[in-house]
């Protein structure tokens, strides 16, 4: 028995190292573009092309690049950063609230048209973006919302995946007993939701918020179509424009390091936010049961 166990644990240790090596290999792959953007934004433009891409050069040029980044086009980048941020916050908070109450209705009530409405919400996920964004562009131009922040924020509040996720979570996390107990105590339906259910739902609410925030932060197609002036651009549209002029223009080769610094600045805040929220959010999803 003891002999068997040591043999097993030697094998176990080997498996453990082997599997860790597999994951480490994929980590290297995951990290390559991140390492590239970090090293590239610390280089001068000649070094960007003249030194090895995945390591630093002797000339540490990060602060100068960041300075150039925020100075380029009279501070356009700072403007885009702020736009991306507040579009994402408003879309995230709005979508989380709207999806939570909609998911609650789908989960905890029986009503006429429920199945039809829910099928509609699920079907919406299948619609190609162009099928929506092109008519949205024409409609928004008729109501004079084109090229305003609302043209980006309002459509992003429709987040069917959020409703889907919320409903699945509420099915498990909020027992009917709690709601019935609330009703017996004479609480109104909205009060039951806001005081009893909502607190239990915080992990899922934050999940939907994060997903909607990231979807907005990463969105490219919608703002590309509905925005025209640089002052309203989010990072994605602004940087893609700079990238296009850096890649296409013969005189604009200075821009390459600026684009790299811009890429670095636009991913670092999201990654940091993600690492923070991740713990709270995953832990919450795992321990969200009230059935005990």
């Amino acid at each position: 028995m003891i002999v068997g166990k040591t043999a097993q644990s030697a094998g176990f240790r080997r498996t453990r190292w082997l599997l860790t090596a597999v994951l480490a290999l994929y980590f290297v792959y995951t990290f390559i573009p991140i390492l590239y953007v970090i090293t590239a934004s610390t280089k001068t433009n000649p070094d960007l092309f003249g030194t090895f891409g995945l390591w630093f050069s002797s000339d540490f040029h990060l602060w100068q690049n960041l300075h150039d980044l925020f100075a380029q086009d009279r501070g356009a980048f700072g403007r885009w950063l702020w736009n991306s941020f507040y579009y994402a916050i408003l879309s995230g908070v709005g979508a989380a609230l709207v999806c939570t109450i909609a998911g609650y209705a789908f989960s905890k009530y029986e009503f006429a048209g429920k199945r039809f409405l829910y099928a509609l919400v699920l079907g919406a996920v299948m619609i190609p973006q162009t099928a929506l964004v092109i008519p949205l562009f024409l409609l928004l131009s008729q109501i004079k919302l084109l090229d305003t922040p609302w043209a980006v924020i309002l459509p992003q509040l429709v987040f069917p995946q959020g409703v889907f996720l919320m409903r699945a979570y509420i099915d498990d996390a909020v027992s009917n007993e709690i709601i019935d107990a609330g009703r017996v105590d004479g609480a109104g339906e909205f009060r039951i939701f806001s005081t009893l259910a909502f607190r239990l739902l915080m992990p899922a609410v934050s999940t939907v918020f994060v997903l909607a925030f990231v979807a907005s932060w990463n969105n490219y197609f919608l703002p590309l179509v509905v925005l025209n002036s640089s002052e309203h651009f989010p990072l994605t549209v602004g940087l893609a424009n700079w990238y296009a002029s850096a890649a296409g223009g013969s005189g604009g080769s200075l821009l390459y390091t600026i684009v790299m610094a811009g890429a670095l600045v636009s991913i670092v805040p999201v990654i940091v936010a993600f690492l923070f929220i991740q713990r709270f959010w995953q832990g919450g999803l795992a321990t969200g049961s009230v059935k005990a």
Partner: protein
Amino acid sequence: MADLAADAAASMPRRRTPSNIGRRLAPYLFLLPFLLLFVAFLVVPLLYALDLSVWRTTLVGGTRFVWADNYVKAFFDQKFWYGVLTLIRFALLQIPIMLILALVFALILDSGVVYLKSFFRVSFFIPYAVPTVIAALLWGYLYSTNSGPAAQIATALGWPVPNFLTPTSIIPSIANIATWEYTGYNMIIYFAALQAIPHELEEASVVDGAGGFTHALYVKLPLIAPTILVTIIFSIIGSLQLFSEPYLLINVARTVINSSFTPNIYAYTLSFIGQQYNYAAAVSFLLGAVTAVVSYVFMLATQRRGRQ
């Protein structure tokens, strides 16, 4: 507990009527904000696009009603099907690689037989937080034949410089970007599903003499099959809407990626460069129809296999 609550409610007839009205109205009120936004920014634009797609504007004839002419035109439009073919080749390559990797990593992490578990889980997920545009832009630099690291290494070793942006290599190159972006995301979904499997099953397997690998293959995989199915369908839908990655790579692969490389790029070009909104609407709807057909066929196929 439920019976007790129901009894208690039944014994209080005075409260029953008003709360029933509230209870009947409540779901509609809760749904109202979502439905208003849903109608305004999804249903109305769709209906408007549907309307657009049955008209045609010409310089001489003005705008006139053409029934399904735009759809017929799109159906026989080689550029549209060329884009669909690109997507099919992309999806057949990318989805299996991405989902198999995600599944393998999730199983490894779930088994707990590795060092640095949470480090790997979090770091694999990070690319999902990188905007698609920036991912495409970074890989665009990495693919570069004169300044990309792969080219630099090849040159230093005296090997031929790999070109990632030729007509034959462009689809694998885009597939690589998508795999980089979404493998971690799918891994997290699988991981959560695996974590929900009760541990008693593992003990039962051990008693039966099954190893970790056998247990993963015969017990865990079937249990998370519904989750796998959902990720496949979402990946198919996502693939068919491919836009940002190839659109950004146009900057570095101008001769390889054209204006009808994917149906979404085609519809975008038709609308915003060609001003052909009516035809673009028909092309988008046709893409929607292709998406629905592909997803439906896939679901039917897997359901039938499940029953046998």
